[in-house]
């Protein structure tokens, strides 16, 4: 039985429990584009009052709900698990729902634009179909042969741990759209597809590793990676993306995985 912790209230907890929200004025600078209106994209500034502890997504909602309903972006869960709202915030790929205003220098204009390397359809909405096609191309599903066991397949905790990091992917495209190779050549599979191939290649239950490695041995496969680590920096789930890509490269050479 534990002892209550309340006598040692930390300053962080005190700060978290402050209720009187103090609002600050910010400028949200959004890259707007709507081909129904104009062929050119433009930056539009919105002056709004926000609580610095709120999310960038809350600020976007504030604009949409109170100033301009035509501002368009995707969002759903609003806490970083669905992967809908990857965007470039102050030039870095992040999820708008996992980025707090106070952490993006609110004293200066906060810039928000669509993720790069993908066709912008309207404002912050990009065409995700090529991204999901690259994902589908690496056969992102368990491949097994022979008869299925009656009960579960056994897997040791260590074998399960081997691919744990890459199971966290939410397919938000923050990594792929931060990759300079991908910006220059949309044919490259991109980090997210390789992450999802890794998730199966290193799963002890899977028997499709060789097939996937051959797919990634392609000229648009893993060898295009220049290890700039943009993908690792961009991943909102903290996946070591570049490391995963390196492990796939190594597996291609050693054929051991």
């Amino acid at each position, binding site marked *: 039985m534990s002892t209550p912790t309340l006598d040692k209230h930390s300053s962080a907890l005190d700060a978290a429990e402050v209720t009187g929200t103090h609002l600050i004025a910010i400028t949200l600078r959004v890259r707007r584009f709507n081909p129904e209106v104009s062929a050119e994209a433009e930056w539009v500034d919105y002056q709004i009052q926000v609580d610095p502890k709120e999310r960038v997504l809350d600020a976007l909602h504030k604009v949409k709900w109170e100033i301009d309903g035509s501002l368009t972006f995707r969002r*759903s*869960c609003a806490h970083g*698990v669905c992967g809908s709202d990857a965007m470039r915030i102050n030039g870095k790929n992040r999820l708008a729902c996992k980025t707090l205003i106070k952490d993006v220098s609110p004293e200066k204009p906060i810039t928000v634009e669509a993720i790069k390397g993908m066709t912008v359809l309207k404002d912050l909405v990009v065409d995700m179909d090529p991204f999901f096609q690259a994902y589908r191309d690496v056969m992102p599903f368990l491949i097994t042969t022979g008869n299925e066991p009656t009960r579960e397949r056994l897997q040791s905790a260590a074998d399960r741990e081997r691919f744990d990091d890459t199971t966290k992917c939410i397919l938000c495209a923050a990594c792929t759209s931060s990759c300079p190779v991908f910006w220059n050549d949309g044919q490259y599979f991109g980090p997210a597809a390789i992450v999802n191939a890794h998730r199966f290649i290193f799963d002890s239950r899977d028997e499709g590793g060789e097939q996937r490695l051959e797919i990634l041995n392609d000229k648009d496969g893993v060898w295009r990676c220049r290890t700039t680590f943009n993908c690792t920096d961009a991943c909102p789930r903290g996946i070591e993306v570049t490391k995963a890509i390196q492990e796939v490269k190594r597996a291609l050479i050693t054929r051991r995985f």
Partner: protein
Amino acid sequence: MQFHTYDTVIVGAGGAGMRAAIEATKRSRTAVLTKLYPTRSHTGAAQGGMAAALANVEEDNWEWHTFDTIKGGDYLVDQDAAEILAKEAIDAVLDLEKMGLPFNRTPEGRIDQRRFGGHTRNHGEAAVRRSCYAADRTGHMILQTLYQNCVKEGVEFFNEFYVLDQLLTEVDGVRRSAGVVAYELATGEIHVFQAKAVIYASGGTGKFFKVTSNAHTLTGDGQAAVYRRGLPLEDMEFFQFHPTGIWRMGILLTEGARGEGGILRNKDGERFMEKYAPVMKDLASRDVVSRAIYTEIREGRGCGPEGDHVYLDLTHLPPEQLDAKLPDITEFARTYLGIEPYTDPIPIQPTAHYAMGGIPTNVQGEVLSDNTTVVPGLYAAGEVACVSVHGANRLGTNSLLDINVFGRRSGIAAADYAHASDLVPLPENPTEKVEAQIERLRNSTGDERVAELRLELQECMDANVMVFRTEQTIKTAVEKIGELRERYLNVSIQDKGRRFNTDLLEAVELGNLLDLAEVMAVSALARKESRGGHYREDFPTRDDVNFMRHTMAYREVDANGAESIRLDYKPVVQTRYQPMERKY
């Protein structure tokens, strides 16, 4: 307008929709319509686990699970359905493992299991380890695994297609499902999908509350589509408030945190659940814990400057255990509250979480048009449906189970039905209603704003029909919702375009929320008892004589076009368990 024909159309691509799609695609020409991309669905936000009496770590069996489910639902559960749920749970988990789901493992390499609220050994003796899990991201893993298997099976998805209407045609005096009408977000085009069978798997309706764990997109679209066509909604007054949402934000912190040993404390540091549930303590059922939290707050033992929350204390658990078993929720506390759960307790409050009620179905997923009659060709599964396996209060880990068991069942049943049936002729002018709805919203010059009405609705629901309800608060809600529905007629939108018009869709979603909020409040007003998630301070006990029955709410329209809600009731299916007083 575009026209499509399929054997089976599935509305929604969360867990239930994709589990159904895997079965239906093997057996029939199937299309899945989703207003998001499949992997954005809110199944992915579920954390703690999926219940199944695998008995991998201790003695357990599906009969105990059945009993816990029925008791957890405060005896409003249909017992035949609960038995199917608990029995088929074992294969449902094993199926997912074979599809590739990376469950946490025991030292022997089997699927690991942990404790969860309301799940007990031998009918309430003590907590049992029944929840099969993958850290605190079990829902994410289920969603990803099902999507992966949809890719494998070549399931055909229509992403960002928004179903707005259910088409019914009367043939030989029987109303049958003829298909659905959908709106394509990218283009603003209307599509008619004629299909032999339609399965709704479109999820919940939690966005009519302000403090909620639900996604922005959970607006009851499927429930509203069938309700507006005169089909009933069952037990809508029963809504679950999850005890541990992040204070004021509502973001879910899994019950698995308490399953791992986490403790709820009031401002005096007291483990208050000992007073309310001496045996199960922090792992009593969710309705019991949520009421206890609000009782503490009301009696002045809440935490913080305004005493409006309590703490979830994990500080006594080893950091390695938190990292391994609860990595996501501890990160939520760091990201959104700026606190370190290793050393600080987490401020929490109950958060609107799950609709126990929904579209009534039988155990094959077939939708009912009254207490017994099936609507041929129409199916529903998951949170949108009411089988009813959750009764008045769902047990944690039973929803990830529900979507797999009844998603699979409805997928098979719908595809088999489609095989044996012909297309039903579409009604004349099938898109008329949807086109009128969209044109009205697009052309309206009224002065009401969607965001403002939605906020007023959410604040009204939080204040009046949450954990504690009385005749007076519910009446206040009914009145306010009526006023908002009037004002909704004057809603206008700013985006008049066709391309990705989310402004328009938010207006449509608000209309759905308003209709469903009204059904909920009217159903709650009539239920003059307390049972599970529905707690009436003016009727604080369960009344099995008058209310051991499901509510069935129908939309009625009189000759002048005036709408009203008619309530009827449906008997509860009881097999082997007699109602008892519910203690934890």
